[in-house]
């Protein structure tokens, strides 16, 4: 193929322009997803696992009985474990449970270390994953300071009791985690866990919009994030 100098210059100019327009559009439409977890509201219903069940059902998460091989997208742990340096021994919160999921960090270490770009930061802030590209080296799991990633130590399919045909199942040997329900967001629906919560304790929204409910909630209420001192910039906030 031959190409004249003029045509080349035209094409370069146009593509630069297109790139600039795309960037400007992104900045204006500005969507940056985040979540706020109202710990007190979440505690209202003791032993409630509705968000976990909804997530597992939506994403074909296997229920593996062996704890060391478990796959988790959203789960519960005590606040003492979630915030080891912020909840002291006199705090009543210490033993109370809180929900845990991927923090969809602003500056995610897992994305930085992945050798195949099988996990990446989307323009709307979500840390996404390609399960077909992942080589299963588990470097992202070593890099994540929150323990938010799970590995398929075995074929997960025999452990999926009620498969959802709308969502892919995974194979053995790949890493997975919460994706903020990208498939539901694309259809204009909130994440499955948010929809399932009977107390509306999980507030999902656009952090880039100063008038969004999540921004108003964060402006009004005291909140903390998991290990912000690491510079990862978690986009999951805990209202305590």
């Amino acid at each position, binding site marked *: 193929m031959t190409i004249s100098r003029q045509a080349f210059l035209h094409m370069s100019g146009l593509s630069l322009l297109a790139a600039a327009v795309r960037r400007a559009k992104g900045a204006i439409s500005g969507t940056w997803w985040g979540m706020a977890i109202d710990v007190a509201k979440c505690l209202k219903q003791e032993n409630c696992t509705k968000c976990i069940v909804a997530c597992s059902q939506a994403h074909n998460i296997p229920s593996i009985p062996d704890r060391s091989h478990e796959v988790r997208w959203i789960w519960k742990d005590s606040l003492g474990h979630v915030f080891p340096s912020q909840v002291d021994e006199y705090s009543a919160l210490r033993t109370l449970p809180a929900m845990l999921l991927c923090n969809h960090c602003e500056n995610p270490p897992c994305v930085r270390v992945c050798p195949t*770009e099988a996990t990446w930061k989307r323009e709307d802030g979500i840390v996404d994953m390609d399960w077909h590209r992942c080589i299963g*080296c588990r470097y992202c799991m*070593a890099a994540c300071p929150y323990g938010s990633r799970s590995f398929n130590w075995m074929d997960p399919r025999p452990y999926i009791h009620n498969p959802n045909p709308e969502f892919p199942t995974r194979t053995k040997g790949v890493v997975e985690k919460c994706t903020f329900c990208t498939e539901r967001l694309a259809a204009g629906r909130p994440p499955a866990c948010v929809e399932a919560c009977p107390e509306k304790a999980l507030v999902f929204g656009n952090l880039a919009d100063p008038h969004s409910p999540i921004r108003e909630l964060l402006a009004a209420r005291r909140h903390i994030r998991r290990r912000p001192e690491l510079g990862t910039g978690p986009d999951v906030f805990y209202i305590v």
Partner: protein
Amino acid sequence: MFMFEKAVAGSRRYWLWICVLAIILGAGFACYLRQLQAGLMITGLSRDVTWGLYIAQFTFLVGVAASAVMVVLPYYLHNFKAFGRIAILGEFLAIAAVVMCMLFIFVDMGQPSRVLNVLLYPTPHSMMFWDMISLGGYLALNAVIALVTLRAEREGVAPPRWIEPIIILSIPWAVSIHTVTAFLYSGLPGRSLWLTAILAPRFLASAFASGPALLILLCLLLSRLTGFSAGREAIQKLAIIVTYAMAISVFFVLTEFFTAFYSQIPEHAESLRYMFVGLEGHTRLAPWMWTSSILAAASLVLLLVPRYRHNQKLLAVACGMVFLSLWIDKGIGLIVAAFVPSPLGAVTEYAPTLPEILIVLGIWAVGALILTVLYKIALSVRETPAFFSAPPSRAEALT
């Protein structure tokens, strides 16, 4: 081919040794096939301790590979002639070690069939990408250098001049492979045991102790099994290198302890505490770490006192101690302990399973096999008359 005719003519003892290695290799391979089918669940790894023996062996062996530079540098840069006989042994040891490193990475992968994704989607912001580049490059450099210089030796001529810059390049390259391997760990925000700037220097120091220690043991073994003699001067010079490197390595480890326990920042001390005294009653690593420490201290006594170091038997004991001590430190402790406690404070212990151990032994057998064949070739070349009629050493020809 690469003088392979030399490798197929050997004594009964040689073939017996090859058969033993082949059996271990076969057992490891059978276990690997099982792992391929069932997944990494057959290992002792878990969602809390995601890297274990495989990655730890890789880390340790990168050091052994890098340590070839401790022979190459004095010989080629300083024209230290006593290393003339063992330079090729160092280079061949590096080749065997790098191949083992690559195999250990490979068996650790959940989806080994996708390994080429690392090249299809090159990702410069991942240290693993750079590790692949540096290891592959190092293997190529050493293979070319060893082949060209050995061939020249066989022909009784000086090696071609174009090999000189390649040899010089291999020196910083050796340092780079272990630095990049340390960076693989020391840049992760949540793993306090690794999050230390001294990790790369520490890796290099321990590498320059364990690698030459292994080389001394190999030389002594060769002189017992074959007519080969490395020469007393070469062995003693290597011993001094081991002594310095081991002392520096121990010093570096002690600085880690000072920072962690004097600052008393809990998360910096927790993994170290787990290694040596255990956490919440979980003490599986402690006997190993104490063994490693005692061996390190004892080996330093034997190495630092000239009278002991000059005694070849005691030197062999000291080298064995150095190798074992650093193998425990890097080949088990350092990798596993960084995952304890987990980010959520859970203390999950790791113990390799039998198939996992067999896979590890299988890869060590591959390394031993490569080393045996390469050493056989090198020694056979030297037994032929051309070697004796060709006095110019490789270093002389180059400098």
